[in-house]
């Protein structure tokens, strides 16, 4: 069984001037056999370094990497039974597709030529590229090269696939197509996979679980919907979801949250959650904000606002709204694409209390997450 465990994994680079840079800081995460884990975070967060440590391309400063029960942290890359797909595909330009795919088997196994031939043919069939086997990488399109890079990993039948932003060089349409295909392929092969991306859409749609990294530290590891609905801290809440969650700095005064622009009444449950916290941040996702086209807020969780900018997406409109108190500081709400809203219009924005997230200002940790009562009542997984 190939369960991949990262155990307190740390990587420190020493700069030329002798100062230490902590690229990966005490990351612990388990990837179950056959699981698709997406490592996501902004650029420079240490996700690629983590992947390269698992591959053996970077040494481990401290901590351990285990494949099954065995520690692989000190093994050479070629001994780890791991295949990696690179962002640039890293195909060998002087070899045909067939030679590219055979290379790993020739170098790392003592298979006969016939066996290798068969494995390559099978992988090429699986990826739908048998007609490309005789061509060289220079004669292929980006999408085809991508498939060959995947094929090169698949033929080796490794315990673990590592993928370093494999889709980032493709155009948007091809990327979403390959996203689906990669997922299906990974389900078919049932190989443990660690996938690095900075794209939260890829993370949400592809991963069985996602691990969010920031500044070298693991912020949260959980299913995509856990991270979306129950973010562990403000960073995860802001990083996952597009458009991002709206945040408002606030202070607690009795049973009300006071922000620069509005007061928000706290429920009993929320008040308990924020007990003892000085400053809190109120968070709400754009799609949870209810926008009503009249100009008579009832008070409470409803506020009078002016529409600043409308970004039509077709299926929905992203509406940037400004409070009367400070019209330049806008927040975003999404409404249905068929609804007509114009810039300058007066609308009422409602922040329903069951969609509110509260974060501690000092630590950034989530104090209160939105209620999923409706979804749980329906007896189904919460849907976005």
């Amino acid at each position, binding site marked *: 069984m190939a369960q991949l465990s990262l155990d307190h994994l740390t990587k420190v680079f020493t700069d030329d001037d002798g100062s230490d840079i902590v690229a990966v800081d005490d990351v612990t995460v388990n990837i179950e056999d056959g699981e698709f884990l997406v490592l996501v975070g902004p650029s420079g967060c240490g996700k690629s370094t983590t992947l390269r440590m698992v591959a053996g391309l970077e040494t481990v400063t401290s901590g351990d990497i285990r494949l099954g029960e065995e520690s692989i942290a000190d093994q050479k890359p070629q001994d780890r039974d791991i295949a990696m797909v690179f962002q640039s595909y*890293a195909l*060998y*330009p002087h070899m045909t597709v067939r030679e590219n795919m055979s290379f790993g088997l020739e170098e790392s196994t003592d298979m006969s030529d016939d066996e290798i031939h068969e494995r390559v043919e099978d992988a090429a069939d699986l990826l739908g590229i048998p007609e490309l086997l005789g061509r060289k990488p220079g004669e292929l399109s980006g999408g085809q090269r991508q498939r060959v890079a995947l094929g090169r990993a698949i033929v080796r039948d490794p315990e673990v696939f590592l993928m370093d932003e494999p889709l980032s060089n493709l155009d948007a349409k091809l990327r979403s197509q390959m996203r689906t295909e990669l997922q299906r392929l990974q389900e078919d092969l049932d190989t443990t996979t660690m996938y690095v991306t900075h794209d939260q859409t890829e993370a949400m749609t592809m991963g069985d679980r996602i691990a969010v990294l920031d500044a070298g530290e693991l912020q949260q590891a959980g299913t995509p919907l856990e991270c979306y609905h129950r973010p562990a801290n403000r960073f995860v809440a802001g990083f996952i979801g597009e458009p991002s969650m709206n945040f408002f700095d606030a202070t607690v005064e009795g049973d009300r949250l006071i922000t620069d622009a509005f007061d928000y009444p706290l429920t009993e449950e929320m008040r308990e959650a924020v007990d003892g916290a000085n400053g809190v941040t109120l968070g709400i996702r754009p799609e949870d904000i209810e926008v009503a086209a009249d100009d008579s807020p009832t008070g409470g969780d409803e506020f009078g606002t002016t529409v600043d900018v409308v970004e039509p997406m077709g299926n929905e409109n992203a509406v940037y709204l400004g409070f009367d108190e400070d019209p330049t500081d806008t927040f975003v709400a999404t409404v249905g694409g068929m609804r007509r809203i114009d810039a300058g219009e007066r609308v009422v924005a409602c922040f329903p209390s069951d969609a509110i997230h509260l974060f501690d200002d000092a630590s950034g940790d989530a104090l209160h997450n939105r209620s999923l009562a409706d979804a749980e009542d329906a007896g189904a997984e919460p849907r976005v």
Partner: protein
Amino acid sequence: MSTDTSRTDRTDRLADIDGYRVGLYVAIGLLVAFFLTPIESGFVTSLKTDAAVGNTAPYLPPLFGGFSIANYVTAVEVLARGMGNSLLFAVPATLLSALLGSFAAYGLTLVDWKYQVPILVLFVAGVFIPYQAVLVPLSRLYSIVNVADLLWFVWAYTPVSVQYADLVELTVTHIAYGIPICTVLFRSYYTSMSTEMMEAARLDGASIRRVYRRIVFPLSTPMFAVVLIYQFTQIWNDLLFALVIVSTGSSPAAPVTLKLAGLGASLEGLDFGLRMAGAFVAALPTLLVYIAFGDEFAEGVAS
């Protein structure tokens, strides 16, 4: 209709010719003449009889008598053995210095280990050692390490004469002095190679040696063309090391440059026609190498 268009085209083209363009073409023409006149003069001189060389201007072809290819016949006769000798050391020295330079550059560029930079600095310093500075140490070295004695069995059991020990020394010397520049040239090429590709090969299970053999070496072809042409021309045309190591043109192992130095020189004066013919004959192999690797050369220089 079509005549109309061609007529306007011609007027347009004539209108384009202004003072700047005329000046430009005159300047280009003069530069071409400046560069080609010495070669043209050498070539026409090589085709003249001794008398014609004295009577006609050096750059005029022998159109009105005095044409002869006797110079070439003599030059080939005299230089043939020297050219054979030169090939004997120039070919192995070129191939080995290129290959070793490529190894060194691979090890210094695409393989990761500590203290690469100080070692690279030594290689770069090697490029800038003036040959004149090493002549005395070089002759001292070969008087201490006596190649003729070390390889006694070759001269004893084969018909090769003992003077050919000098060519072994020349080969070793040219390899040693060629490695730094070859390394630097290959290094500049290897730094542009994708590191992800190297990492992919390592993850594919290839050892450092196999990565070189199967990935780096086949991809080095354009740079090999550049280095082979450069090194062959350098080694083939070298006179300084040949003078120090072989010293005399009368040796049976004398390289072509030594033979050429004495060609057509006698007490009666210099035979210019013969010397020019000799120069062209001696330059022929470098020209052939250039033509053979020309396409790859262009590709390698471009990258």
